[in-house]
């Protein structure tokens, strides 16, 4: 049975208010707390290390897999390996995410290593939300590593969200695209207090007509610091775009390092990076609508991170 804290964490990271429909695997405090495989989606435990294998049959359409992780015990540290095998012609949604509630004084950490093997002509939407809470001195740490191998003609959309409460995070994402494959990444990040967040993307456009769009929007408040690195490598006729757009506030620090590497004359790569504080005229406009300065700021940030 899940505790109330764990249920609340589930609602935060996966919008789950009850047992999800379809395939799911819920991991709570390092143990399996519920699992369901379906006719098309099989979830099984790994035998050599902690984690699961998720196998999605070719041709599976309009199905979803939820694999949330919740930690409510202080001092718990784990590394979990999850492998996804998505068959040809699938159209599926995968919802991952991790919530840590740490009311103790010891650090709690979850490092999820996700590897996606995606077949041909498949469509995958992947949503990953990170959330932390708790009053203790122990930090909430998450270091996700994601590898994505996208087969011919497949498209993957990744939504990576970390809005609250994670003290320390280092996100590494590596993607390799074959012929005609497409990757779209939307990252949204908010850091506050003394939090530190690092995000590192490497996307290799290996197949002809492959394309990638990696976009990060972030807000750094108070004394928090962010480092965003995005590297797109064009090894064939391909197009790539990466964008980092950050709002900096208070005493925060933001570093953006876009990097492009073209190894083929037909590779077209673009990067954009912008860091700045909230524009004064934006605040003024919302104040003329009757909002206070702090309400205006909140609306601007909420919109920006939408």
């Amino acid at each position: 049975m899940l505790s109330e804290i764990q249920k609340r964490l589930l609602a935060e990271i996966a919008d789950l208010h009850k047992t999800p429909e379809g395939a799911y695997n819920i991991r709570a405090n390092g143990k399996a707390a519920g699992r369901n495989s379906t006719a098309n989606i099989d979830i099984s435990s790994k035998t050599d290390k902690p984690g699961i294998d998720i196998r999605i049959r070719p041709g599976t359409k309009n199905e979803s897999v939820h694999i949330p992780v919740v930690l409510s015990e202080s001092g718990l540290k784990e590394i979990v390996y999850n492998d996804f095998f998505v068959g040809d012609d699938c159209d599926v949604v995968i919802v991952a995410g991790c919530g840590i509630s740490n009311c103790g004084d010891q650090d709690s950490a979850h490092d999820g290593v996700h590897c996606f093997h995606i077949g041909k002509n498949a469509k995958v939407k992947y949503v990953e939300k990170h959330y932390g809470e708790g009053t203790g001195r122990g930090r909430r740490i998450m270091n996700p590593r994601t590898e994505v191998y996208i087969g011919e003609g497949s498209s993957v959309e990744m939504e990576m969200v970390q809005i609250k409460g994670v003290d320390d995070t280092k996100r590494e994402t590596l993607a390799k695209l074959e012929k005609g494959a497409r990757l779209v990444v939307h990252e949204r990040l908010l850091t506050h207090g003394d939090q530190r967040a690092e995000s590192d993307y490497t996307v290799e456009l290996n197949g002809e007509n492959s394309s990638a769009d990696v976009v990060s929007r972030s807000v750094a408040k108070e004394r928090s610091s962010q480092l965003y690195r995005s590297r797109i490598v064009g090894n064939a006729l391909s197009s790539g775009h990466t964008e980092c757009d950050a709002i900096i506030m208070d005493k925060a620090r933001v570093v953006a390092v876009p990097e492009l590497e073209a190894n083929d004359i037909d590779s077209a790569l673009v990067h954009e990076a912008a860091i700045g504080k909230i524009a004064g005229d934006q605040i003024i406009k919302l104040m003329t609508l009757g909002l206070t300065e702090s309400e205006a700021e909140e609306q601007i940030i909420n919109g920006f991170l939408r």
Partner: protein
Amino acid sequence: MLELKNLCFGVENEDSAKEIIKDVSFVVPDEKFVVITGPNGGGKSTLARLIMGIEKPRSGSILLDGEDITALGITERAKLGISFALQQPVRFKGIHVVDLLRLASGKQLSVGDACEYLSAVGLCARDYINREVNASLSGGEMKRIEIATVLARGTTLSVFDEPEAGIDLWSFQSLIQVFENMQKRVHASILIISHQERILEIADSIILIADGQVRGQGSRDEMLPELMKSTVPVTCSRILEGGMNRAQ
């Protein structure tokens, strides 16, 4: 009723000081349509910003319905019933047109209600309601959305800074109608900064501002013939030399 009394405003650099508004007084009566006109750089937009509380005057006072609001901030003035459409509307990444209209109206507007405001400013509502108020919108679209936010507020005093700028001629007549309807619907006072003859033509009264001063004010019938005789800058100098000061 809005009342400006002996308003002065200036900016100071390290080595120079510049007077921008010099002892300006005028009244915008209830349910009246007042247009401020005059040459570029004459202080018109600064006046609008002083009325909204974005700038603070050096001296003088601003009264709304008899209450001195000179010391109040932007938010308080907005809550007391002043709306302001900026000359250059502001863009927001991620905020949708419908969000802005909801914030403006101060309530959970239904999509239908929000659409009405957009239709009123000549935008096909369905196409815009969920658009982001970002760089993907043209200058003219932004101006119309800006006017729609003022409509959604429905306050007793609305100030528009050059609302016609960027609006194509084809839509101009409907813009005029927006102002006329607005006045009827909420019994509002409207203060518009404009150079457009057709806006001057529907004004109850016209105030001419040049070089930070009121150079003439009076009813449309008094002011318009003089203003129309020549281009505005020339008119100003003629008014200075001639008899228009009598209107003050």
